[in-house]
């Protein structure tokens, strides 16, 4: 629960089913295997581990996919060092999915389970895609149901449920022989125990030597969010690609955000290089406060820095090298890929309590993190 990745479950399950095949409409996804090593290092948190994805067509119209993923976490984040003790833990997740192609329709089913010492998540998902108008248009409808069980590592009797439902509509459209776009709308509803059972909020307390004390955070038991995202990818005259992205997000906790990104892909012989810049800006949740005026000051209260107003920026560099392009035994081709994302998050209300300053006047916290991925891919 305390890891970076407790709810990858729903994301992973759905992504397995919604792989975009570019302009290759009306076909099953390619048979491939990916072996990934991932590392997140920043803000006192280090998370690394492997991810294995395998996809294979097993009949004329059926493709199966499986994913196994591990997070190994070592955390001494700003929250942890100010209110708790550093910890280590491990999370394991597996996903299974199936795609069935009939004429221009692809139907997909999936299941994902994630377990760690104090958090268990199960997700079921389905989607249906229809290619239309000479395969220029692909319409996708998706639904996912997630059930989480939240526990506490220091209290075996603590158990809370959370149910999440996802509704998605996606439209991919070929506009010209050089331009493809996709528009996605997603609504997600949560109901249950949504806050972290370990995290606290702080409130002003003149009786404390620090000038403040802590109490458990308390979130609303429901949340509904809406997001609409648009992506466009353009083929440049000299064989390179340019992509632009934009997303607008809003939810019932009063978080509203704008996210934009631009990326450039440049192939060179067997190499492919990518550079990407991403910018995200959001308002904070209505119940977020870095310092409450007194205990139980409001009905709901949170000090999760991700619920603070913030601006994040990411610069990505990626390189991919293709080998065995002429095939070897049953393998058609392979590639080795490396990427690093340099992430900076500037929080506009969440303060750094490790700084020596008057209560409520500490500097705002800034997070710098490196996200590294190294993976091999094989097509067969």
């Amino acid at each position, binding site marked *: 629960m305390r890891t970076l990745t407790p*709810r990858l479950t*729903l*994301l*992973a399950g759905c992504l397995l089913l919604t792989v975009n095949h570019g302009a290759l409409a009306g076909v099953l996804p390619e048979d491939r295997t990916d072996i990934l090593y991932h590392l997140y290092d920043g803000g006192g948190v280090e998370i690394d581990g492997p991810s294995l994805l395998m996809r294979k067509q097993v009949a004329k119209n059926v493709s199966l996919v499986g994913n196994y993923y591990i997070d190994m976490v070592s955390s001494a984040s700003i929250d942890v060092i100010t209110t708790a003790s550093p910890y280590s833990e491990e999370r394991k997740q597996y996903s299974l999915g199936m795609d069935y192609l009939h004429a221009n329709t692809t139907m997909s089913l999936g299941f994902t389970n994630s377990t760690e010492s104090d958090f268990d998540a199960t997700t079921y998902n389905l989607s249906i895609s229809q290619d*239309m108008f000479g*395969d220029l248009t692909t319409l996708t409808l998706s639904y996912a149901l997630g059930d989480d069980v939240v526990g506490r590592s220091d209290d075996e009797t603590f158990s809370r449920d959370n149910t999440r439902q*996802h509704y998605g509509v996606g439209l991919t459209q070929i506009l010209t022989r050089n331009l493809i776009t*996709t528009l996605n709308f997603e609504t997600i509803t949560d109901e249950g125990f949504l806050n972290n059972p370990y995290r606290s909020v702080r409130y002003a307390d003149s009786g404390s030597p620090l000038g403040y004390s802590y109490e458990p955070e308390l979130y609303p038991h429901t949340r509904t969010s809406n997001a609409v995202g648009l992506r466009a*990818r353009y083929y440049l005259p000299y064989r390179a690609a340019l992509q632009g992205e934009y997303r607008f997000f809003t939810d019932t906790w009063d978080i509203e955000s704008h996210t934009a990104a631009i990326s450039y892909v440049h192939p060179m012989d067997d190499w492919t290089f990518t550079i990407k810049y991403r910018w995200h800006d959001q308002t904070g949740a209505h119940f977020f406060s870095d310092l409450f005026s007194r205990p139980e000051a409001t009905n709901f209260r949170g000090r999760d820095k991700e619920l603070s107003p913030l601006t994040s920026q990411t610069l990505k560099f990626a390189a991919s090298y293709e080998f065995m392009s002429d095939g070897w035994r049953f393998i058609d081709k392979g590639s080795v890929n490396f990427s690093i994302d340099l*992430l900076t998050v500037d929080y506009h209300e969440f303060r750094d309590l490790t700084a020596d300053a008057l209560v409520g006047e500490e500097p705002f916290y800034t997070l710098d993190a490196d996200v590294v991925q190294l993976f091999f891919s094989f097509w067969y």
Partner: protein
Amino acid sequence: MNTRLVCRLLLPFLAASGVSACGRIEPWVKPYERDRLADPIMFLDGDPVSSAYIQHVYEAREGARGGEGAAGGGCGCN
């Protein structure tokens, strides 16, 4: 604007609503003209195992979720 252009602009909305008021629509990008779109550099999500991971990093570090072609859940994590 001619009828063909109107249909092209309205096509996504017609597709979404399941309604076609333009009659039979001829694909304006023929199959033999899609070689560039079939190039792997044009895939919107060429590496699903990688994009799933990086999307989750963003969802764990920001308050927003979804809208990027795959569903996601927010989390209150340290």
